[in-house]
């Protein structure tokens, strides 16, 4: 009928959503069928579960507790470089974990900068490995995220409310209680839940800074069950536990958080009349900036010398990584664009749900499932690279849809009628209107997907044999072999490649794009 006429069909999107659901649910089913409940939960499994929960709670609480004063300072201070700093807070999202870890080791490690100073004064060096190291790395990654989430809460408080409070002479504690506390009570549960959920699936951090019976996450235990014991039943059992945890946490996070608006509008400072204490604000901002910038500078400084004499094997793995990231980006767009179009033309619960399924599953769980499915047919390590590209795409899908769906809705509602009246439908509408109109968002989503895939150290560790490796895996292997110079050079290369890929795609999308 005429009213339901839409310029683009939702069938390809529904098909893409079915593929995604089949991939995620299919691998989960494979895991569940293979899990050996009778096998029992050993004491080391319980330890992994306890450690996973402990580190995730600590990481979430510390990140959010530190983020509140930082966000408050950023919300009420204007200073040169403020918008740059806020943009930088988005960077950890695309920063390869292994790069950040090398930077953190350089600063906080046993032979790092801080330890050097301590030793100089006769104290003993810091030990970074273990629970506190894992939490430190998680705070490094999630303090910026928490700050952005909370800053958004502050920005959303109408300025009239601050004006009214100023008129009534509210300041300090009374202003905090009147306006800011209710806002925080609304925002903080979501922020805590999101970070808790992210830290539950921590693999690369636990792999490099944790380890040992007392600092193993479930994700890491899955990997160990695979690589050390090749105990598929145990890996599957752990995966099932991990799945229950992540699904519950993702559900809580989705319920409690209202979703971060990616980027826009956060660089506006609110006008306020309650002075506050500039010195305290300045201290918080400087501390946060130093905490974020120091490890990154360390990567650059320690990597430069190694960068010019990288072993051939590192360069080879860099090429492999670029290939995997490109393939992953293409797969992501092939799935996400039709899905975004389908959701834009009418409400498709199924498409939307399978779009966020990726949040509930962890990469290693999907990896385990794929391994179980592939093994009877082929040698899984032969498929290491395609599987990595595919899983990376599935993991990036929820973020890509958050970026693409609003743009697709806007395009359909603004141009749908005109297109229909000109008989532009289906493929023609898709290629002539939807894609050109969504180019900035497509570029941004592709940039995120490419950078995420470039820096991913997860599934590839499960599948790869010694012959092949992506760049992050190669860096990890170099670290394991104590070739720190080459590892640092590789990390700098990885950092540059990830940022370059993101920048190219994001810029490319916005190049000559008309509003």
């Amino acid at each position, binding site marked *: 009928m005429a009213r339901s006429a839409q310029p683009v069909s939702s069938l390809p999107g529904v098909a893409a959503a079915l593929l995604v659901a089949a991939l995620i649910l299919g691998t989960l089913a494979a895991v569940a069928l293979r899990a050996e409940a009778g096998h029992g939960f050993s004491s080391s499994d319980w330890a992994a579960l306890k450690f996973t929960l402990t580190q995730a709670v600590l990481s979430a609480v510390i990140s959010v507790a530190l983020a509140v004063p930082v966000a408050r300072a950023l919300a009420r201070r204007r200073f040169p470089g403020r918008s740059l700093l806020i943009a930088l807070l988005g960077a950890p999202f695309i920063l390869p974990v292994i790069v950040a870890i090398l930077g953190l080791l350089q600063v906080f490690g046993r032979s790092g900068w801080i330890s050097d100073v301590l030793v100089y004064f006769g104290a003993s060096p810091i030990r970074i490995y273990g629970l506190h190291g894992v939490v430190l790395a998680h705070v490094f990654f999630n303090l910026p995220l928490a700050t952005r989430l909370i800053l958004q809460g502050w920005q959303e408080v109408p300025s009239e409310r601050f004006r009214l409070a100023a008129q009534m002479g509210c300041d300090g504690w009374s202003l905090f209680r009147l306006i800011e506390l209710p806002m925080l009570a609304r925002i903080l549960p979501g922020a805590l839940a999101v970070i808790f959920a992210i830290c539950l699936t921590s693999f690369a951090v636990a792999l490099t800074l944790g380890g040992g019976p007392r600092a193993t996450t479930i994700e890491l235990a899955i990997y160990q069950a695979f690589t050390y014991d090749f105990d598929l039943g145990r890996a599957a059992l752990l995966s099932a536990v991990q799945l229950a945890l992540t699904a519950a946490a993702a559900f809580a996070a989705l319920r409690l958080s209202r979703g971060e608006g990616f980027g826009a509008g956060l660089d506006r400072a609110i006008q306020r009349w309650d002075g506050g204490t500039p010195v305290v604000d300045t201290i918080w901002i400087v501390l946060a900036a130093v905490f974020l910038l120091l490890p990154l500078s360390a990567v650059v400084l320690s990597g430069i010398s190694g960068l010019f004499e990288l072993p051939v094997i590192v360069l080879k793995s860099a090429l492999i990584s670029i290939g995997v990231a490109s393939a992953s980006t293409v797969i992501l767009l092939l799935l996400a664009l039709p899905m975004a179009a389908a959701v834009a033309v009418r409400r498709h619960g199924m498409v939307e749900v399978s779009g966020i399924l990726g949040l509930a599953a962890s990469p290693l769980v999907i990896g385990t499932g794929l391994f179980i499915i592939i093994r009877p047919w082929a040698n899984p390590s032969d498929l290491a690279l395609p599987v990595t590209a595919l899983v990376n795409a599935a993991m990036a899908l929820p973020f890509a849809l958050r970026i693409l769906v609003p743009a697709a809705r806007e395009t359909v509602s603004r141009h749908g009628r005109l297109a229909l009246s000109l008989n532009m*439908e289906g493929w023609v509408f898709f290629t002539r209107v939807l894609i050109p109109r969504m180019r900035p968002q497509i570029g941004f989503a592709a940039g995120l997907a490419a950078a995420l895939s470039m820096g991913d150290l997860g599934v590839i560790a499960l599948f790869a044999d010694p012959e092949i490796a992506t760049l992050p895996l190669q860096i990890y292997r170099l670290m394991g072999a104590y070739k720190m110079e080459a590892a640092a050079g590789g990390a700098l290369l990885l950092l540059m490649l990830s940022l370059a890929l993101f920048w190219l795609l994001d810029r490319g999308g916005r190049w000559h794009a008309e509003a």
Partner: protein
Amino acid sequence: MLKLDTCTISNGAFHLQADLSVDAGNSVAVIGPSGAGKSTLLEAIAGFREISAGSIYWQQQDLTKLAPGKRPIAMLFQDGNLFPHLTAEQNVALGLHPSGKLSHTEQDQVQAALERVGLAGMGARKPAELSGGQQSRVALARVLVQHRDLLLLDEPFAALGPALKAEMLDLVAELAAETGTTLLMVSHDPQDARRITRQAILVADGRAHPPAETEDLLDNPPPALRQYLG
């Protein structure tokens, strides 16, 4: 002849009855109070809105079940009549082919249409590089190449100044006369209706009335219209 045969157009709880016909080649204004359903009427004729009862015919052809792009109708909306990422030429070309891919003769048609609306040499510009009036001209050039029997205007020139709006309406009247196009235009301004239409459809109190002489209607308005005109 455009015929709305005992139509009921529904928009949520709002219902509009229409039982009327418009002669081919005629120019008809659609007037009435705000919110009476003038745009709704045009949207139903163009196929953007489902009708819950009745049928719409053009020259004995039943349009009721046809998709908007398959009807012999071109429509200009209040805004968004051009794709901002396409040039003027490309926007006009869409009137010939939804894909915008044209043969040489068709490209000549596009150039001729741009020339006809006074935009010769500006085909390579994008909408953002054109003034509001020029953007309206591009949309009219597209209507020209579309060769549709009916043209529906839902106040596409509302954002233009009075002089420019009058100029555009004159151009529309000229083009419609040249091509024998049947014109239906929503109007808030009695002057616009007097300017280019002989007949007018009054939409008020849930009914679209059959066309009456524009002058008579405006000079001796029924109560609903009188209240609106003030």
